[in-house]
């Protein structure tokens, strides 16, 4: 997904002279082809995220469209004031591509995990927050990003994620995609958790429970229309995210439904508790710890319906 995203930056830069790439201190050979082809629009600026964001803002003020890439906590927490003031106050078309969203970097420990990125990014006025499910959907997002007026935070998944998106999805930033028609249950998920929810829906179907899956790739601006249309009439609403329960997708969904006056069905929010992670392992093993594996999601749904 990361390679797909960055190769798309190169492709966008080939067709639009406003596009530039800024990395911090990425891996050897990152976007080598772009660097060779257009060195004047390729920047690798070192471990200095505050400067990277301010510099991107300065470029955007003069008409460029910077795609910035580094590891998620360092493009959010480390330079939060620059993201807020330089990028969001000025509402500039800066794109923040965040490696290792959620618990992808499980082996590296809590310094490298982005488990609060939705919360802190969506708290910023003007910022769009997007977490696609797979590399094919990433291509569609990158195409859509070019002409988006304001800033976008793009959370990357692990890479090599199963492709569940489809060319016929009519991908639009801010428009949720209904992956499975709901019955008694509607699951709403984003990023890598949508694939787990689809599997959970299969498991539930075998048990005779129809569970829908709404892929909310855009956490902000949230597609309230889809929620207003799909939530009423369900027995159970489940929100699933690779993120703290505080301030993420589930919070955003409940805010939207309450503010719109929708009568809430029973709600279960699945995600990480109010704690920094205490183990290493892998993204999958962390999903197991936090009840985000497909089988666990299905069990949670069955229990909640019982």
């Amino acid at each position: 997904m990361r390679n797909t995203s960055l190769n798309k930056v190169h492709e966008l830069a080939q067709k639009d002279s406003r596009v530039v790439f800024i990395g911090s201190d990425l891996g050897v050979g990152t976007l080598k082809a772009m660097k060779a082809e257009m060195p004047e629009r390729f920047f690798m600026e070192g471990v200095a995220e505050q400067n990277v964001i301010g510099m991107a803002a300065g470029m955007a003020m003069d008409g460029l469209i910077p795609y910035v890439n580094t590891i998620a906590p360092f493009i959010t927490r480390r330079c939060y004031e620059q993201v807020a003031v330089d990028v969001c106050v000025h509402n500039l078309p800066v794109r923040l591509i965040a490696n290792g969203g959620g618990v992808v970097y499980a082996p590296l420990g809590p310094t490298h995990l982005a488990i609060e990125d939705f919360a802190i990014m969506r708290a910023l006025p003007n910022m769009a927050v997007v977490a696609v499910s797979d590399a094919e959907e990433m291509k569609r997002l990158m195409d859509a990003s070019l002409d988006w007026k304001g800033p976008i935070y793009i959370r990357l998944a692990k890479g090599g994620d199963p492709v569940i998106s489809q060319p016929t999805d009519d991908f639009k930033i801010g428009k949720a995609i209904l992956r499975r028609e709901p019955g008694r249950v509607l699951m709403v998920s984003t990023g890598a958790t949508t694939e787990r929810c689809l599997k959970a829906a299969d498991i539930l179907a075998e048990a005779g429970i129809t569970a829908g899956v709404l892929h909310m790739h855009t956490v902000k601006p949230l597609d309230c229309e889809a929620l207003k249309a799909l939530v009423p009439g369900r027995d159970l609403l489940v929100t699933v995210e690779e993120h703290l329960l505080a301030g993420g997708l589930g919070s955003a969904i409940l805010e939207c439904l309450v503010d719109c006056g929708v009568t809430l069905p029973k709600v279960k929010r699945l995600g990480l508790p109010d704690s920094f992670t205490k183990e290493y392992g892998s993204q999958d093993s962390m999903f197991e710890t936090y009840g985000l594996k497909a089988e666990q999601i299905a069990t949670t749904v069955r229990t909640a319906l019982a």
Partner: protein
Amino acid sequence: MMSQESAIRQAARQAEARPLDNRSKHLRRLVVEGLLGGGRGHIGSSMSPIEILRVLYDEVMRFDPAQPKWTGRDRFILSKGHGCLAQYALLVDKGFIARETLGTFCKKDSILGGHPEANKIPGVEASTGALGHGLSIGVGMALAARVQKRDSRVFVVMGDGEINEGSVWEAAMSAGKHRLSNLVAIVDYNKIQSYAFTDEVQPLDPLPEKWAAFGFDAIEVDGHDVEALSKLFRELRYDGDKPTAIIAHTVKGRGVPFAEHQPSWHHKNKFTDEEVRAIAAALEDA
């Protein structure tokens, strides 16, 4: 070298002994109009960079008040946004904004807040106020000019307290790396930050050496000497291979004798009319 530096510092420190000319007084009157309008303001911080801004706007920068977004303009960023009354004075003087606007400073529907906002004020490039942001934005603008093959230059004025921020030095490294000769970083070195003298809070010397070590041509100047500033900016090579750092030795509160060199005059949020009259009167005698 040291003796020359000392001479510049010495001259700046004694700037209050020299009378202000009419233009410098006029610009400071505009600052006072803002203070009077808002009943508050960073007076010390707005008085120290007046001559720097005066020379930039009068003699150095290319701009068009009728077309504030003219692509070919030079960019000016007041990174020490709290000194905004100095910039507002120049923007009024150059016709970007109406003089009456100063009377609305910090009022509910004013375009002029206690820190400058780009989306409200013609001629303001970047909203500043949070310190340590302007130089990185300036680096981005200087690089954008290079990408877009424009000869625009970028001038960034920072406070001395502001450069305590680590982000300033990230930006300095970046400017040095990219050899941004179209970027000029100016430190309004009035030796006082909010709490106390910079030497007490966070000593900065040797300041020119610091900037030079980051890849800048570092030059000291008496920041109240209009002729020296004019000569310096005229002789800068904007097409060389290094960014420039100007360490401008200034006097905080310059022009208001009882505020000069006084940390307590960094910011005031309760001026009585009487105090404002005293400031105005003192300025006339400066």
